[in-house]
């Protein structure tokens, strides 16, 4: 896919919250959809609850862009439900996530200069 090979990582910026959170979760290891959803909910303190349609819509798009790929490795068959699909982050996905994080960091820096850092932060 051209995006993996030639396209700059900044072309995809800004990533949607769902996509960025999925990348964040997969950065830690392979996950199936339901696990991703629960993890994102936990990470955001329940503020971001991704519905199944949005989740798989995002996964579909990320697969096409080459940010993630389906994993053939299955966990222990006793723990696994064969109807689940596992996903893992690609090298390109990692780069895109890094680039997005850098963009956010620059934004936060700029905001701190403009508005100062709140005391409770």
């Amino acid at each position, binding site marked *: 896919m051209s995006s993996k090979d030639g396209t700059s990582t900044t072309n995809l910026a800004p990533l949607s919250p769902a996509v960025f959170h999925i990348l964040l979760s997969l950065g830690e290891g392979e996950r199936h*959809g*339901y696990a991703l*959803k629960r993890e994102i909910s936990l990470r955001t303190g329940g503020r971001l*609850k991704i*519905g*199944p*349609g*949005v*989740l*798989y*819509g995002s996964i*579909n*798009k990320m697969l096409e862009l080459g940010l993630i790929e389906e994993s053939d490795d299955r966990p222990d068959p006793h723990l696994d*439900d064969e*109807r*689940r*699909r596992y996903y893992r982050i690609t090298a390109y996905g990692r780069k895109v996530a890094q680039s997005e994080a850098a963009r956010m960091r620059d934004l936060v820096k700029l905001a701190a200069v403009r508005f100062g850092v709140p005391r409770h932060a």
Partner: protein
Amino acid sequence: MPDQPFSLRLYRWVLNLYPATFRDNYAGLLEREFRDELQESSGTAALCRLWIRLIADLAISVPGQLAREVGQDTRHTVRLWSLRPWHTAFAILALAIGIGASTGVFSVVNALLLRSLPFQDPERLAYLSNFFAPHDSVTQFHEWRQQSSYLADTALFEPFDVNLGGSGESRRAHIVQVSSNFFSVLGTQPLLGRGFTPGDDVDGTGVGTAGRNAVAVIGYGLWQALFGGDPKALGAAVRIDGTPLTVVGIAPPGFDYPGKTVLWKPGAFSRGNNGWEVVARLKPGITWPQARQAFAAEADRLWPDRTPLQKIQSPSRLTELRDQLAGPTKNAWLVLLASVGLILLIACTNVGNLLLARTADRAAELSIRSALGASRARLSQQLLTECVLLALAASLVGVFVALWTTSIAAKVQPAPIASQAYSILDSRVLGFAIAIPVLCGLVFGALPSLFAGRVHMFEARGSSSNRASRLIGEALVAAQVMLAVILLTSSLSVGHAFLQMMRINRGFVPRGLMTVNVSLQGTAHQGAGRSLAYFEEALARVRRLPGVQSASATEFLPLYATGGIGGVFAVDGKPGRASSAVIPVFSDYFQTMGGRIVAGREFTAAEVKGNARVVVVNERFAEQFGSPADALGHQVFREPRKIIGVVNGMDYRNERNDPLDANPRQVFIPSTTPGGFFSTFVARVDGRAEDRLAMIRDAIKSVDPQVPVFGAKTMEQRLDDALARPQFYRTAVSCFAGFALLLAIIGVYGVVSYTVAQRSHEMGVRMALGTTAAGLRVRLLRRGLLTIVAGAVPGVAGAVLCGKFLESLVEGAKPANTASYTGTILSIALIAAAGIWVATRPLARLDIMEVLRTE
């Protein structure tokens, strides 16, 4: 857990909202997630929360996925189209003509028959034709209308043309005098000022009397033109034929009933004025059949001495106002709508056929995609997207066709009143224009989609699937042939009516003849004594012009171009039997018109000047006396006038422009004032009449610039105007028939060339085994012709039914005869045979060795 299986079933159903690919890939996973969530949600409240979250999720994700897949399919379709630009252009053009023409015709039908009239409760308004409501005095009329048992109220109106302005520059204007309750019967309130009140209408003649009767309500357009929309117009004066009227009201914009009226004035009632027309409102609770029955009884009561013949010749009718406005052309438009409907159907089947052939061509691609996991739903979705895109592209082009159709319609058959103007910017027309392409997309998309399903089940290039698609293709071609036969024979029927009209001997020579209207109303020349001098002076000036052979004047031009009057007149002192038209003319009229004197002679200048008691009649009038020569010397009218000449009748058709009654009995009388309201000068010139038009108009104008001179037209232009409408219907139906034939032939060609392409291997093998190329081509030709016959047989049955229907709808239409049917089918078969022969040409060039090698 409450209702778990139901929730699951519901969710499975909801998943169908997602596009096919997404559903194929993720439906199982989504369902799995849902089960997990369902297990975690205990209690009704939790279940409700789950569903609310899911609905929000669907609202976000479904449109996104749809846009994504439709975008992919669109790109794929455009790629396919660019590979076969001619194929695509033909499909789009065929559909565009079908969609555009049907939308255009529907916009007319909508304006005439469906759009609400700009009156209060318009469906309760009636028009009473051939009915003279008691109108000798204003009191008699109002007393009569108040005692009706079935009409809530009745109003009279009489339209006529006047010279508007009076002093300075005057112009011709169409105005109407009305009974004082005219606006209240229609339920229309003036925009400014008031309507008329009882007492505004009076007993009197002409344009009325001074005082309360000398008031007017002016149209919105005239208010803008004369007063620039200034409210101070109320109280100002306008002059009609020199008489001043005070403006008391301004009509609302768009109100111009009856037909293009710019000024309404209260009526002046007088005994013997039979120009009144009647509009009425039905009493609440009275149905239309009840009202018609009561009306017929009343007509019989008012004129007990009418003969059965008179009742047939001019029957009194109570019709819905809308039907009266739509007039006799209503049926013609319905026929056109049916024709364009058939065209659309043929275009749809044709495009369906082309797509089917292409889908079959793409069987290999589809099979591979199917093997790679694309589901039947996915393939159908792709095909359907292609069809809907095709329909959308066609409807974009179709908008222009529709606009063009509407503009032609407005020229040929102008809307009877302003609010019925034809427009495609109408909610009903736009709905039609959107629904039709979508419906078309579904109709011609359905077959290829079904085929896509079959591809999924069969092996690639499976012979059975090819045969199935070929059979469907042939069935579609047969259906097209059937529709083409119906349209072609219908066009022959309608064409017959038109040809009959064209072949009529009009009794005058239009070439080199020109006409100019003048009106002496309200000018210094009004009145019998003064108008003769004006006519003599004007004609003398015209006759002196270079290139003018002869000139004359008349009140009524042929072709009902300037109206007409008539009645049943006494012959030789006995009551007459049939009605005749009366045409006042000046001397040299027949010579100028190019009329043929069959017996006797025409009027001399002295007879005109002396108002001699003589007449010239047409051959049809003379029939009652035997030969034309026998008619000479007989007396016509109660105050007898001697017949001194018989002419070949002129085409003075009736006001309905009915070609069947183009040559009624005619009585020409000499007149020093040919034209009570306005007159027409006629002049025969050398060379092209158009070139002399301005010169003659200026010569007449030079006699007195105060006299409005208008309607300067050649007789050929007037003939075109009179025949434009029937010619349009005929041309339209013939074009549709021709287009249908073309589509059917392309359909046959398409199916045969597809068969040749698909079966070239088989044909090659057959040829290797000894069959000749010519033999194979004949076999294909036979099969193609069988398809034609299969369509032609039900086509003839349909055409017979349509013929009967047309006969009742279009006056003068004759059902097609056996010769027409045979001719139609033979010509379709011949053209199709030529098409098939061309399509099978590749067989003659087939290289057997090449075929066998690839085998």
